[in-house]
């Protein structure tokens, strides 16, 4: 009798082995790897005065600025804060220590600092750096860079020869105040990328104050300062932009904008805007298709979390996590409330499903910032990667269950339910920005994160055996980047964008995990309305798809 049981046990173990092997093969194999040649440090210069700007930077962009097929890295620096800070504030951005940096990827996987060569070395002495957006606003085939600041924002035109030119004044996109995240998208489907900029608070060094204990001050919550409006710039197509914030209805809603993400949530062919607001209702700007937007978050069920509370929204991603073809929202926020998941139910409505999706047990005591929904294990389901770290550098003295420095969260998607994954050995940091892309072109999505007072972290995904497909869109009638296109591969949908996360801009290429499928079927709905189908496409390749001419 004992023998029989034992035999059965052996059989069961043997039967399980292929499954286990498959699981191991599919799990992302992250390795925190320093990239040779990248020596950047995000210098936020914290002061005892707890100026709120010092805890909010900084962004990272993954872009191929020279079109050599290799992703390059642009990192936004913050600046020096004097104590006290006097108006007009000067942040010593002329000092190399506080420059933004562009690192070109070499063919051997190392990086070269090309900041000076590219003409990106000085970001304006009165600008304290925040975030970055990337898009080819003039459709010349080279990605341009927009940098947000506390101060004036900067648009760098990519000249196509390895250099950039500051065209902010001509373009008319300097904004002002405290800009945070930004993103390029084409809201009127005219084939030219427009620009959206979130702004956080009506804050100045003069209105700054501290909260908490006298001898141990902390940053004040956002409610202590005035709210402000976001900005929408319409691309005129002649190298200039028009501020249409008021005319479009965007400025009608004042908030505390941090993250921004774009997708056509109701399938009407026009890209909508979601703004993650801090400690107030979130904003969902429905694109009415006539140049105007209506803020509909509350009535669409995308304003408050599962418990009816206002999230402290920070980073946001607007992609389809449950493969039902509709873009959902994942929003990072402060600890003791789960990261918010708004599931797109169709009918122009969302329902908060952070608990159903498992984020209630994943967020716990962490504060989330940059966030991505990418298929890190190429199993056909988008996973979440969230960079974490508390707002307050002294949070532990106020709540010893919380910590300033934290490790990122990898949440693996098991058919719409998320479970904690392994990011590999790592160090806790005060994480902020996060961008995602295939840095080494091996078919597995990597992550680059930023942290205050520290260098960037490179999580290289050494992957496994599943198949994948990476698509570069080339718009013709639509904007050249294809931003706003709805791309469906073997039933999975991605909405083309480099925006989302927090302060950051990801690889514009669209990555799909195919699991065991070595072939793919592709359906594209371009922003122009043109539909395109590709059948029997081989897996494991980088594919450029050009938008067909309108018939």
């Amino acid at each position, binding site marked *: 009798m004992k023998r029989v049981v034992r035999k059965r046990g052996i059989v069961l173990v043997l039967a399980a082995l292929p499954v286990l092997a498959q699981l191991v093969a599919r799990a992302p194999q992250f390795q925190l790897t320093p990239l040779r040649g990248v020596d950047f440090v995000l210098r936020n210069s914290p002061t005892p005065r707890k100026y709120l700007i010092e805890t909010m930077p900084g962004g990272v962009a993954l872009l191929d600025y020279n079109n050599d097929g290799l992703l390059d890295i642009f990192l936004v620096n913050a600046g020096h804060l004097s104590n006290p800070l006097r108006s007009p504030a000067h942040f010593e951005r002329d000092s190399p220590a506080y420059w933004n940096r562009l690192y070109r990827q070499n063919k051997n996987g190392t990086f070269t600092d090309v900041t000076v060569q590219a003409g990106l070395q000085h970001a304006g002495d009165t600008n304290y750096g925040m975030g970055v957006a990337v898009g080819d606003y003039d459709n010349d085939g080279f990605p341009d860079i927009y940098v947000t600041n506390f101060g004036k924002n900067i648009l760098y035109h990519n000249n196509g020869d390895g250099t950039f030119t500051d065209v902010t004044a001509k373009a008319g996109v300097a904004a002002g105040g405290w800009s945070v995240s930004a993103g390029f998208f084409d809201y009127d489907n005219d084939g030219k990328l427009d620009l959206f900029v979130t702004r956080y608070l009506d804050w100045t060094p003069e209105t700054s104050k501290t909260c908490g204990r006298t001898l141990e001050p902390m940053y004040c919550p956002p409610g202590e300062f005035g709210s402000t409006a976001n900005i929408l710039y319409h691309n005129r197509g002649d190298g200039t932009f028009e501020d249409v914030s008021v005319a479009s209805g965007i400025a009608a809603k004042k908030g505390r904008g941090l993250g921004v993400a774009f997708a056509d949530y109701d399938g009407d062919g026009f890209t909508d805007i979601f703004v993650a607001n801090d400690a107030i209702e979130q904003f969902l700007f429905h694109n009415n298709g006539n140049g105007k937007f209506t803020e509909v978050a509350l009535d669409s069920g995308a304003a408050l979390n599962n418990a*009816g509370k206002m999230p402290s929204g920070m980073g946001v991603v607007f992609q389809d996590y449950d493969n039902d073809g509709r873009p959902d929202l994942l929003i990072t926020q402060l600890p003791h409330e789960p990261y918010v998941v708004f599931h797109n139910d169709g009918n122009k409505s969302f329902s908060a499903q952070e608990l159903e999706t498992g984020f209630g047990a994943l967020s716990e005591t962490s504060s989330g910032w940059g966030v991505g929904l990418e298929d890190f294990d190429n199993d056909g389901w988008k996973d979440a990667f969230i960079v974490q770290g508390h707002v307050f550098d002294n949070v532990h003295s106020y709540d010893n269950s919380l910590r300033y420095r934290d490790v990122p969260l990898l949440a693996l998607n098991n058919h719409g339910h998320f479970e904690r994954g392994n990011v590999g050995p790592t160090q806790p940091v005060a994480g902020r920005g996060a961008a995602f892309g295939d840095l080494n072109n091996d078919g597995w999505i990597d992550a680059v994160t930023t942290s205050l007072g520290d260098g960037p972290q490179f999580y290289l995904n050494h992957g496994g055996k599943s198949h994948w497909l990476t698509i570069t869109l080339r718009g013709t009638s639509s904007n050249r980047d294809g931003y706003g296109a709805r791309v469906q591969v073997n039933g999975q949908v991605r909405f083309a964008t480099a925006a989302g996360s927090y302060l950051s801009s990801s690889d514009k290429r669209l990555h799909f995990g195919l699991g065991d499928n070595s072939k793919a079927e592709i359906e594209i709905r371009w922003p122009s309305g043109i539909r395109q189908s590709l059948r029997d496409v081989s897996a494991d390749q980088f594919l450029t798809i050009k938008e067909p001419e309108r018939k």
Partner: protein
Amino acid sequence: MIQVVFFLHLLLPLQAVAPQAADQAKALLQSGIDAENRKDLDRALVEFRKAAELDPSSSDVLLRLGDACMKKHDAAAAIAPLKRAAGLSPDSVPVQQLLGYALLAQGYAAEAIPHLEMARDPGALGIAQLENDEPAKAMANLQSALADDPDNPDLLFYLGRAATAAGSQATDKLLAAFPRSARAHQTRGQGYYQRKMIPEAVKEYEQAIAMGPDLPGVHLELGEIYAGRTEWPRAEEQFRAETTLQPGNAEAAFRLGEALLQEGKMKEAANELRRSDSLRPNMPETLYAIGRALAAADASAAEQALTSVLKIEQNTPLAAEADLLLASIHRKQGKSALASREMEDYRRIQGLKGQ
């Protein structure tokens, strides 16, 4: 406390004392009473002191003198004449009572107690016992006094203090006599938790559980600490242990349901929350949690639970949350008119909150 004693002494019925002093002393006594009636306390004191010198054996004179001193808020001066009066008239309730007040006002609580016992004044006696570190006895007397004067804020204040002191005394005894007992660890855990020293609190609770795994309430308290830190799997473990120990405890079932809800285990959560609702029906928080647990899987049951919340709660934050969730359910069902109505209610309540 002194002011309360002075206040209490004003209520004494001195009219009950009959003057029986020598004639001269009697005249001075009357003169003092007249001055007192004219609210000339200084004059009255002079007259009463002279009378007491002339007739030191008159307890009535001594009582008047002590009373005048107390009216002048000079308890120290009142004690000597009142003690002499008590020696002369040990059965006199006003003398014993006033002496008790004077001693209590001067901080001699232990000395005041026998006098107040003789005076049968449970309120003042309770205060004296509290001051004398006898909170249990104080609670009994103060409760007795409150039975006659239920809305007396001073008595309520001292009863509250006595209860706190009694609890503290019991805790001290527990910690001193049984420092390694499960209850001692639990008590220390509570103390650390109140001081927000969470790791220390958790350690104490874990030790309490190790020593007394079947003690009711300990798992619940530890679970609540974990829940407060949003450590839901650990919270679930503790709440589950509590529900095993106390299957009839609606609170434990509710907490377990909440933890399961936070972990996304919606079906299990709904079962546990329904069990809590059956143990203690119509708790709005339980019904709302049932609505949250079932919103995705069983819209009809969720709707029923949330509608029940709205029958119990009106214009409260919980009612607003129920409206919001109902709106979400209706939207999902394509019932846009119903969703709009719920959102209108939500906005109305939020508006009320803002006023």
